[in-house]
């Protein structure tokens, strides 16, 4: 019996996975071809979607990338019926992409069918829950998690065992306690939580049940971002199947422990990922943070002790129970244990989801797993930690990645976004982009964040627009420290990071914008001009054809010129010229 497995996570669907799946089901005859058609979640190699994996009896497996419905026919005829592998469509980067990774949380993602609990059970799923319910006291579970050194994957890196313990010990008059899974994932470009929920929802559910048992909770919630319909669907199916097997609900697996999980769909605001705002939103109030002097583990959702963890944090729990705290803490660095999933995006060859042991260097992630920078450009910086993370420059590329080291260099782990930038990126422009996002996403409650970020954006816009003034850099720094120090929640507390870190590492770029009215990377529109190099131009006229303003004139086979008065600096001429004749200065 052969298996055809099509990747149908959001990334696969976006690349036409459904059409590929349908084409296979149209062409394949299950009996005659002795082939089962299956679906799975995200395999991480989003740059090669739609992915199709073919598994044959002898356990020979072939992974085809960028499969289209048109290619399906040849795969069916040549490979499945003819037994001949189509070499040119095989994903060649697979080895390189996987070599430095350590896929433990993502182990089953892209292998099992998320809609079939049988797949998860067959891979050892819910064994950890069985073990916990039959042989461990709640305190032992907490001690095991604490010993593993697991820290929250949602951004703060708070020790999970300690959080569970304080929630368990917090007084609650009627004994009610809640556990919540934070799947708000508001960072642009980050999608590890989505992939986990889509590709292996049971691992998250199992983690939550174990956590609830340890903490003494009978009701859980998963707060999912509104824009994640497939995650909601797969999670819903998984919850149903778990209930049907007695893994959720009353007297789980015959024990006297009862617990169930509800899904709650968030409004899609970035700030609703913050713990107190999330709980307010879950209660149906405006999603805005409150001061956290009294922890949510003592007074959280509806004023009851509440334990909130990130999706990835929960998914780590069954692994720790199954394989032991000692095994888990053998991975990683001294104060950051285990692995972390990053979404690797930006100017990098292999974009996708990667899971790496803590302590791996940026160089290994970018050059080995990521395959380096496309079109031979030079690496400039990498931004980690989502919109309010900092930019880490090239000279720190050998930095080991863990919670503390990233904070030391002015960035953070955040939820695990990793945006790679090449030499054509302007750091002022980047800082402006992130501050703009954060200004829009600030809840607007407190002054430094609401007004401070807005004024920060004004100053950055002026600098990028050639209206910068002497003293602006110092003013940005002064404002940045004040926002960081005085904001109510961590959004404001971390929002100045992109500005402060770029000033710290790329001050000369800011100075060039202000003092020389020049954008060294050639990005800030108001500071650049496009001209045509007479020597290089052969008069093909491609640029003129593509110019939306019709600003380019010239006779055939003679050098063309750009009319600066009407040029809108879109850069289309540069992108289209085959002879690099359009120069930016």
């Amino acid at each position, binding site marked *: 019996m052969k298996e055809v497995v099509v990747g149908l996570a959001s990334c696969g669907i976006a690349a036409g996975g459904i059409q590929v799946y349908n084409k296979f089901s149209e062409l394949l005859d299950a009996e005659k071809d002795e082939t089962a058609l299956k679906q799975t979640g995200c395999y991480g190699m989003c740059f090669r979607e739609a992915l199709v994996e073919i598994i044959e009896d002898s356990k020979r497996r072939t992974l085809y990338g960028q499969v289209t419905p048109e290619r399906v026919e040849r795969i069916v005829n040549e490979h499945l019926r003819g037994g001949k592998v189509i070499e040119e469509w095989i994903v060649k980067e697979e080895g390189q992409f996987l070599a430095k990774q350590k896929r433990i949380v993502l182990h089953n993602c892209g292998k099992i069918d998320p809609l079939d609990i049988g797949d998860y059970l067959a891979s050892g799923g819910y064994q950890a829950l069985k073990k916990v319910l039959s042989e461990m006291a709640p305190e032992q579970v907490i001690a095991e998690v604490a010993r593993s050194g697991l820290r929250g994957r949602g951004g703060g890196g708070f020790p999970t065992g300690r959080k569970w313990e304080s929630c368990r010990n917090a007084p609650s008059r009627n004994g009610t306690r809640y556990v919540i899974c934070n799947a708000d994932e508001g960072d642009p470009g980050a999608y590890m939580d989505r992939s986990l929920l889509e590709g292996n929802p049971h691992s998250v559910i199992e983690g939550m049940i174990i956590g609830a048992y340890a903490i003494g909770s009978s009701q859980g919630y998963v707060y999912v971002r509104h824009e994640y319909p497939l995650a909601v669907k797969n999670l819903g199916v998984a919850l149903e199947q778990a209930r049907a097997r007695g893994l959720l609900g009353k007297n789980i697996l015959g024990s006297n422990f009862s617990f169930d999980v509800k899904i709650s769909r968030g409004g899609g*605001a970035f*700030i609703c990922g913050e713990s107190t705002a999330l709980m307010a939103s879950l209660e149906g109030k*405006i999603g805005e943070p*409150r*001061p956290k*002097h*009294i922890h949510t583990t003592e007074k959280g959702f509806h004023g009851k002790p509440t334990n909130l963890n990130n999706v990835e944090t929960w998914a780590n729990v069954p692994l720790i129970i199954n394989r032991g705290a000692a095994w888990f803490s053998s991975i990683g660095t001294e104060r950051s244990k285990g692995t972390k999933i990053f979404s690797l995006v930006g100017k990098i060859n292999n974009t996708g989801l990667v899971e790496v042991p803590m302590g791996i260097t940026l160089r290994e992630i970018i050059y080995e797993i990521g395959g380096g920078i496309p079109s031979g450009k030079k690496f400039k910086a990498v931004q980690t930690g989502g919109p309010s993370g900092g930019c880490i420059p090239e000279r720190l590329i050998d930095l080991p990645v863990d919670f503390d080291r990233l904070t030391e260099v002015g960035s953070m782990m955040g939820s695990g976004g990793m945006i790679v930038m090449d030499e054509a990126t302007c750091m002022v422009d980047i800082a402006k982009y992130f501050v703009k996002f954060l*200004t*829009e*996403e*600030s*809840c*607007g*409650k*407190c*002054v*430094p964040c*609401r*007004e*401070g970020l*807005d*004024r920060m954006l*004004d*100053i950055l*816009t*002026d600098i990028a627009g050639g*209206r910068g*003034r002497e*003293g*602006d850099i110092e*003013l940005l720094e*002064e*404002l940045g*420290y*004040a926002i960081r*120090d*005085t*904001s*109510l929640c961590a959004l404001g507390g971390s929002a100045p990071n992109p500005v402060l870190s770029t000033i710290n590492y790329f001050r000369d770029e800011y100075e060039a914008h202000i003092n020389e009215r020049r954008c060294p990377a050639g990005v800030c529109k108001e500071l650049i001009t496009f001209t045509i190099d007479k020597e290089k131009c052969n008069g093909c006229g491609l640029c003129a054809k593509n110019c939306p303003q019709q600003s380019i004139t010239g006779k055939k086979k003679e050098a063309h010129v750009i009319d600066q008065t009407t040029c809108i600096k879109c850069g289309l001429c540069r992108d289209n010229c085959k002879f690099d004749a359009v120069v930016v200065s």
Partner: protein
Amino acid sequence: MVELTIDGVRTTVPRGTTVLEAARSMGIVIPTLCYDPGLTPYGACRLCIVEVVKGKRSSLEASCTLPAFDGQVIVTNSERVKKARKIIIELLLSTCPTSKKLQDLASNFGVNEVRFKIKDKGCILCGLCVRYCKEQMQSGGIGFVGRGTSRRVGTAFGDTPDECRNCGGCEWICPVCERACTADSLMNGLCGGCQNYAPVETCTVCIGCSESVGARGHKVY
């Protein structure tokens, strides 16, 4: 009772007291804008920040929402506090340049320039009116709408809400003396003809200059 140290002086206060209340009971002055003794502390203006010292490290916290704990060490007027507070006043002034109260605060704290772009909004979103309406009048006629820089105080449908009791409390409690709520009919019963409103010189021909304002203040063309 809990015992804490504020500006080097030890004091004992009942459990549940905030650091702001504790400091005020000792006669220490901490400026506030969004705090009112009769309303739930909100922590939005951040003017009441103090430095909380924990061994070698310290952090800034809003004292109006900070509960007093045993052994806490608080400094209300350190250089770090003063510096941050001045920036906050400067930011507030750039959103409400005509407010007498903010101008007084600025002069008391030595803020004599506004380096940020002036965006007169007539409201600092302190939420006093919203909390007054809800907590003192049990009405809830006004609330916050929008997020980030588009956040404002408004009524549910932009009209005088049925719950409004025309008490005028929202006007009375407003620290910047201009209610941001723009619902027309609310004006009638409510506006007391604010005494403090004194518009500053602005350009007669405002061209909406996109510049930050710079050290010499807003330019008058």
